[in-house]
């Protein structure tokens, strides 16, 4: 790929982000502007901002890569990401807006009138936010590495600096403009090349992608293996090898490997002839690709894993910190609903595109499955299929879109994590402390992303969804619809539900889980941890019925009554539930 085009495109996105952020700074004058854009953002702009914030690296690059690797079963990811917004709309959108809560911890305190519940909720907000920020920073590092050969930490540092700068300088108002811009950029960046690619594919007699058989190479392909891998051959394969295979050194000569397992050393270059079947990469526990593996597995594991994914994404979206914060920018509950309806349309249109890249990648770049760089499929396809200057320009456009994805999600997360830190950790509130909190919110995941280079990216995102579905989903749903929820019940449910999901996935990652069903159950905890969270919350609430918050009826009335009945149209000044903050 031509580095000059890609670097220019990425630099342009970074500049545009800072520029629009700076414009926001000139508009953003009061504290209220700063936090919540004074709640005057109209549904169209706000919906574009929410969509822009939500469509992260996992959506822009990850889905196409997963489809390339494992076929259409992986389409459950985009379906789940979209359906999460439907569940959110139906169960929490308007009441959450009417609660006047800015963060999920504000909601916990307003509904339960308990400082303890607020502290536990804050802990989960910061934890989930950091879990979600980490893969964004690492994805940025990976992209920049593929595009320009820069060291892996560089991309993460650039994203962290730009985001911390934009958020600390302009706050929510400028972030709204930045993210609305980035939604349209991401959609264009994925749509325009897709049209060219489909045209080229049609001109090529529209070959079909096969997912039930190993992918076949269309032309002679040189593949460089960066990390040592085990491959599995189902029939003998003739190829040229420069490097080591099965511990033997070869220097660019033809070789026939027998069927069965082989070990390819790091730095080996394999020359695969046209028509060869791409060898299957054998995934191990530490392999980034292993997370989604069970989805396509047989004997019930696959079905269970699919439902694990469905529950985590459908119910986890509502508890993501950067999603909840966005409700506050709508003027009232009805606008919040309409905004989410527009978001569903925008996100749905976007998700039509990544599968196209996945299928085309399976046809034209199947060797990416072997090198483990399947996430790069979106970036390399224009060069591979179209080629020439046109291919390079389209590739640069995609790189710009990918960077917009890292920047927008990372800024939304930083904004919300910083909001919680500045309210619950730092001694006093105000814009200066918010800026300090921004640095804190970004520094921790950045440090982890630089130190731990091999945290599987997809894992961290899936983990964030599972933890959110098991902790905040019960809190929000029961808090909004069930009068008898008590503070001890909520705290117990958060800890048992969210804690068990976190423990299960961490244990699987650490390789403690035994093989077989125990492993599948722990890798996809949402199926049991979400009901566990709900049941704990209900049981402990019933057992501590005397601790019912005294103002529960007033709170529920506020959550559910339309604003024109309660006369709560207060366009200026952030309204906070009494005693919020401590």
């Amino acid at each position, binding site marked *: 790929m031509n580095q000059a085009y890609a670097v220019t495109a990425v630099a342009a996105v970074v500049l545009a982000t800072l520029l629009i952020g700076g414009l926001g700074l000139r508009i953003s004058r009061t504290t209220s502007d700063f936090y919540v854009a004074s709640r005057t953002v109209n549904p169209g702009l706000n919906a574009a901002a929410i969509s822009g914030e939500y469509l992260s690296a996992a959506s822009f690059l990850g889905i196409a890569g997963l489809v390339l690797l494992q076929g259409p079963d992986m389409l459950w990811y985009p379906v789940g990401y979209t359906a999460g917004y439907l569940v959110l709309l139906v169960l929490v959108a308007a009441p959450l807006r009417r609660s006047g809560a800015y963060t999920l911890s504000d909601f916990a305190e307003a509904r339960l009138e308990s400082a303890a519940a607020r502290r536990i909720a804050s802990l989960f907000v910061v934890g989930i936010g950091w879990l979600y920020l980490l893969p964004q920073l690492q994805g940025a590092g990976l992209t920049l590495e593929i595009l320009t050969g820069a060291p892996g930490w560089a991309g993460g540092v650039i994203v962290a600096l730009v985001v911390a700068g934009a958020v600390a300088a302009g706050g929510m108002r400028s972030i709204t403009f930045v993210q609305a811009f980035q939604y349209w950029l991401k959609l264009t960046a994925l749509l325009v090349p897709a049209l060219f690619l489909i045209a080229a594919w049609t001109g090529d007699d529209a070959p079909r992608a096969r997912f*039930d058989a190993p992918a076949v190479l269309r032309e002679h392909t040189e593949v460089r293996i960066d990390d040592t891998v085990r491959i599995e051959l189902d029939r003998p394969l003739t190829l040229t090898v420069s490097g080591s295979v099965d511990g033997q050194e070869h220097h660019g000569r033809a070789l026939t490997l027998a069927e069965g397992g082989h070990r390819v050393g790091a730095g080996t270059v394999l020359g695969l002839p046209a028509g060869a079947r791409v060898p299957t990469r054998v995934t191990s526990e530490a392999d980034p690709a292993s997370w989604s593996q069970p989805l396509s597995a047989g004997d019930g594991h696959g079905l269970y894993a699919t439902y694990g994914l469905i529950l985590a994404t459908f119910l986890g979206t509502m508890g993501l910190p950067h999603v909840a914060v966005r409700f506050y920018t709508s003027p009232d509950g009805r606008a919040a609903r309409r905004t989410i309806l527009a978001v569903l349309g925008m996100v749905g249109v976007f998700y039509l595109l990544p599968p196209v890249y996945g299928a085309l990648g399976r046809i034209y770049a199947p060797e990416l499955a072997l090198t483990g760089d399947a996430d790069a499929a979106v970036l390399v396809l224009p060069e591979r299929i179209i080629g020439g200057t046109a291919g390079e320009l389209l590739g640069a456009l995609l790189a710009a879109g990918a960077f917009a994805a890292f920047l927008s999600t990372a800024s939304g997360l930083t904004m919300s994590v910083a909001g919680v830190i500045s309210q619950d950790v730092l001694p006093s509130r105000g814009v200066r402390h918010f800026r300090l909190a921004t640095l804190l919110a970004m520094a921790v995941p950045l440090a982890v992303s630089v130190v731990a280079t091999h945290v599987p990216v997809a894992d961290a995102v899936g983990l964030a969804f599972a933890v959110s579905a098991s902790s905040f989903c019960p809190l929000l749903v029961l808090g909004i619809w069930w009068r008898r929820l008590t503070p001890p019940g909520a705290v117990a449910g958060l800890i048992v539900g969210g804690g068990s999901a976190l423990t299960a996935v961490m244990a699987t990652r650490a390789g403690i889980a035994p093989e077989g069903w125990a492993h599948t159950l722990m890798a996809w905890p949402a199926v049991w941890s979400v009901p566990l969270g709900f049941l704990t919350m209900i049981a402990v609430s019933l057992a501590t019925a005397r601790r019912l918050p005294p103002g529960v009826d007033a709170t529920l009335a506020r959550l559910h009554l339309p604003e024109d009945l309660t006369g709560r149209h207060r366009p200026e000044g952030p309204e906070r539930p009494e005693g919020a903050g401590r």
Partner: protein
Amino acid sequence: MSAEQRPRREVVTGVPRAAGRAPGHAHARSEITEHTTLGTTYVRSLMRSQLRTALCALASLALLVGTLPLFFALPAAFDDGSPASGAVLWAALGVAVHPLMWLTARWYVRRAERNERDFLGLVEGR
């Protein structure tokens, strides 16, 4: 202790009625804003109708989308493995699901707004 200092006895027959309160619909409104038992009942009736609407939308999501994995697992159980089932998978998950979810959402938004309008009508006596 003299008789003058003793607090005077008062006859209490009910809650003092605020002077000038408009009759009829404003009554229900203040019942709600003052969180009386009757007001709470009003709020609960709104919550119930909104919850019913929400559960309808969730049920249709569960039926339309939630049952798809089972539906896709069936052909594998009968082991036909034809490419047609792959095409159905792509069409269903890649395209068809999205407009279905959006239509469900639109139905919900309209219905929820209507519930609120009906409730306002009830409370304001319109």
